């Protein structure tokens, strides 16, 4: 049974309806065969029994006709009428022969009937020969009495025999026909029975099939339908038992399971998504509100900017004029910087000379310092001398004291010498102080000279640097001049550009206004979106997961 479950629904239907078709075909064949048999028996009835009966009746009619004609010939005296009747007799004879032949031909299988027919035919032949060979010539010969006796005698006997046999044959044929009809009825009854049996079997089979298919296909589908109804009500917690069937229903159940899984997952995600959407839409709404206010601010800012651009445009015009004068100035500056270069070279040469002279000065000061030292040595000697003079004067005064009154004059001289010695000492001290000052001044001069030399060296260096710088400056100024020319061109372009910018700002202004309007629309759209998000969240929450 499992194989049938695993069969596809198409296969199942194919098998069920195939079986039905087979049964139907069987019924049809049975019916056809039965009907064919009935038809055949009816045909037999028609062709043989009815034909035989008819032919026998015709035969009797013609026999009657012929006897009547013979009698008519006897009765009449006119030759023409006799000939007419003769012709009729001949005609009827031919037809009788024909009918006889047909009867024999048809019934040569039936021994009994054929024997009777042969008998009939023999009597008839005798009858006919007697009539043709004796009666007719007698009539023509006018021997009517003879003919009449003949006809009423033998011929009538024969005629009676023929009629009896014909009637007997007719009855026989009738009996045969009745048998045939009965056979046919029996056959048709058989067919009806067969059809009834087959139909019953077929109906039972069909019922079984319906029940089975309903159990196999409809029941799981109904269960599925119930589940789907719960699903439709938003209950995603439904569970469908797994099925290992491989037919469409099995795959449908599996697919449905997968679908529910996915649906559950998707609904969960949708739930989350709806939450996110709700919060996001709230944020978007807030942002859009901000953007709307921002757009309004932008609009006003753009208006201000437009005014500013107008001012900038005028400024650019002024700048363009200025730039032209700057370019001219730059050319002049380039020439000046060349002159500056030359001057710096001269300055460097001058510095070199100053350095040489500084060296000379340094040497002179050195000599001066050395001479000052020599002088100070001399002063030491002079000081020593003054000291000794002083002592001498003191000793002289002592001697003068010892000499008493006579030494008084000498004492004065000694005093004078002493004061001279002191003066010379003081002078020496002064000179020494001055010499010290000179030495200090010399040292200071020396230091100043040294610093001067260093300064001059630095000056030379700086002059060199200045030269380099001025050369660089000259180059830069040249570049600046070129740049100024380019700037002049650029400035012109800038002016043109500023015009375009002004135009663009106008456009931006319009766009900004449209922006504001658009943003307001966006705001309302965000509002709608927010509501939609809320709604969606509500909807999503209807699903039980």
């Amino acid at each position, binding site marked *: 049974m499992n194989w049938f479950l695993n069969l596809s629904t198409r296969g199942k239907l194919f098998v069920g309806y195939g079986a039905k078709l087979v049964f139907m075909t069987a019924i049809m064949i049975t019916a056809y065969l039965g009907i064919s048999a009935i038809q055949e028996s009816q045909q037999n009835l028609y062709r043989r029994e009815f034909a035989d009966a008819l032919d026998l009746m015709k035969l009797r009619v013609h026999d009657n006709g012929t006897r009547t004609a013979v009698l008519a010939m006897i009765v009449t005296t006119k030759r023409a009428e006799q000939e007419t009747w003769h012709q009729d007799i001949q005609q009827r004879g031919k037809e009788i022969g024909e009918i006889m032949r047909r009867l024999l031909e048809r019934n040569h299988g039936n021994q009994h009937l054929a024997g009777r027919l042969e008998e009939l035919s023999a009597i008839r032949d005798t009858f006919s020969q007697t009539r043709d060979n004796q009666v007719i010539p007698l009539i023509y010969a006018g021997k009517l009495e003879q003919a009449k006796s003949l006809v009423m005698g033998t011929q009538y006997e024969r005629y009676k025999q023929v009629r009896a046999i014909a009637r007997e044959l007719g009855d026989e044929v009738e009996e045969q026909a009745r048998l045939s009809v009965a056979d046919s009825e029996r056959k048709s009854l058989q067919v009806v029975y067969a059809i009834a049996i087959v139909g019953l079997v077929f109906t039972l089979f069909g019922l079984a099939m319906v029940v089975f298919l309903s159990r196999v296909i409809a029941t799981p589908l109904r269960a599925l339908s119930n589940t789907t109804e719960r699903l439709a009500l938003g209950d995603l917690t439904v569970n469908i038992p797994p099925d290992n069937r491989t037919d469409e229903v099995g795959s449908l159940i599996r697919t449905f399971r997968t679908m529910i899984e996915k649906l559950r997952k998707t609904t969960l995600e949708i739930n989350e998504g709806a939450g996110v959407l709700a919060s996001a839409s709230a944020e978007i709404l807030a942002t859009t509100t901000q953007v709307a206010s921002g757009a309004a601010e932008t609009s006003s800012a753009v208006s201000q900017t437009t005014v500013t651009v107008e001012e900038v445009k005028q400024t650019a015009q002024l700048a363009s004029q200025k730039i032209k004068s700057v370019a001219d100035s730059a050319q002049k500056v380039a020439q000046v910087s060349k002159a500056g270069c030359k001057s710096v070279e001269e300055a460097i040469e001058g510095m070199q000379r100053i350095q040489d002279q500084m060296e000379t000065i340094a040497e002179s000061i050195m000599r001066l310092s050395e001479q000052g030292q020599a002088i100070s040595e001399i002063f030491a000697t002079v000081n020593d001398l003054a*000291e000794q003079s002083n002592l001498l004067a*003191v000793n002289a*005064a*002592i001697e003068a004291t010892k000499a008493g009154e006579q030494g008084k004059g000498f004492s004065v001289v000694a005093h004078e010498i002493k004061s001279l010695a002191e003066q010379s000492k003081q002078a020496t001290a002064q000179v020494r102080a001055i010499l010290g000052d000179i030495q200090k001044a010399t040292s200071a001069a020396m230091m100043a000279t040294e610093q001067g030399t260093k300064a001059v060296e630095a000056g030379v260096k700086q002059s060199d640097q200045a030269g380099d*710088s001025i050369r660089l400056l000259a180059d830069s100024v040249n570049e600046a001049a070129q740049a100024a020319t380019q700037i002049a061109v650029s400035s012109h372009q800038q002016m043109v550009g500023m015009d375009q910018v002004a135009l663009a700002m106008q456009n931006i202004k319009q766009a900004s206004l449209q922006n504001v309007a658009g943003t307001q629309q966006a705001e309302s759209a965000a509002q709608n979106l927010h509501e939609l998000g809320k709604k969606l969240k509500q909807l999503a929450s209807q699903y039980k997961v």
Partner: protein
Amino acid sequence: MNLEGPESPKRNIPMSIDWRQIERRLEEAQVAIEHAWEPTAEETKRILRERAKGLAREHGQTELADERIEVVEFILSSERYAIESRTVREVYPLENLAQLPCTPAFVLGIINLRGEILSVIDIKKFFDLPENELTNLNKVIVLQSEKMVLGILTDAIGGVRSIPLADIQPSLPTLTGIREEFLKGITSDRTIILDADKLMVDKKIIVEEQVPE
């Protein structure tokens, strides 16, 4: 252009110096040096007048004083001292001092004065005066009496002066001991006059002579 900025003041400084004026001043200095030993007439006159005044004053003082003593002034630790010039033989720079071992602190050493060996004493030790370092500017006053010749170390020699006796005041009553012994008096200008005779006959010094015997 900018780099020339710092240089310009350096140039300007020498330019601001008036070389002409400096040359003129140097010339004047040269002239002054050359004519330093030839004082002008006015200078000569002034010097002569001062000398005349000096001489006139000296004479006046001499005549006014009745009794005077001649003293030799000298400096000991910034204080002025004086000794009667009659006890002084001569003054002499402190040269070739040879220190003597095993002598009291006040004996400085001995010197060779033109072949004569003299002992030199440091009287600062007696008066508790602060010591100065010995230099070749120190002088020795050579005292001479009938019995002995003695050198006294001084920081510097002031000169010979005559002082009226009336100007000399007795020594201060606060001074005692050796100071009072050697002190003769003090003048109005706070010159301390030492008594050389007492100094030379003082036993402390003489005792010193006996020790080497």
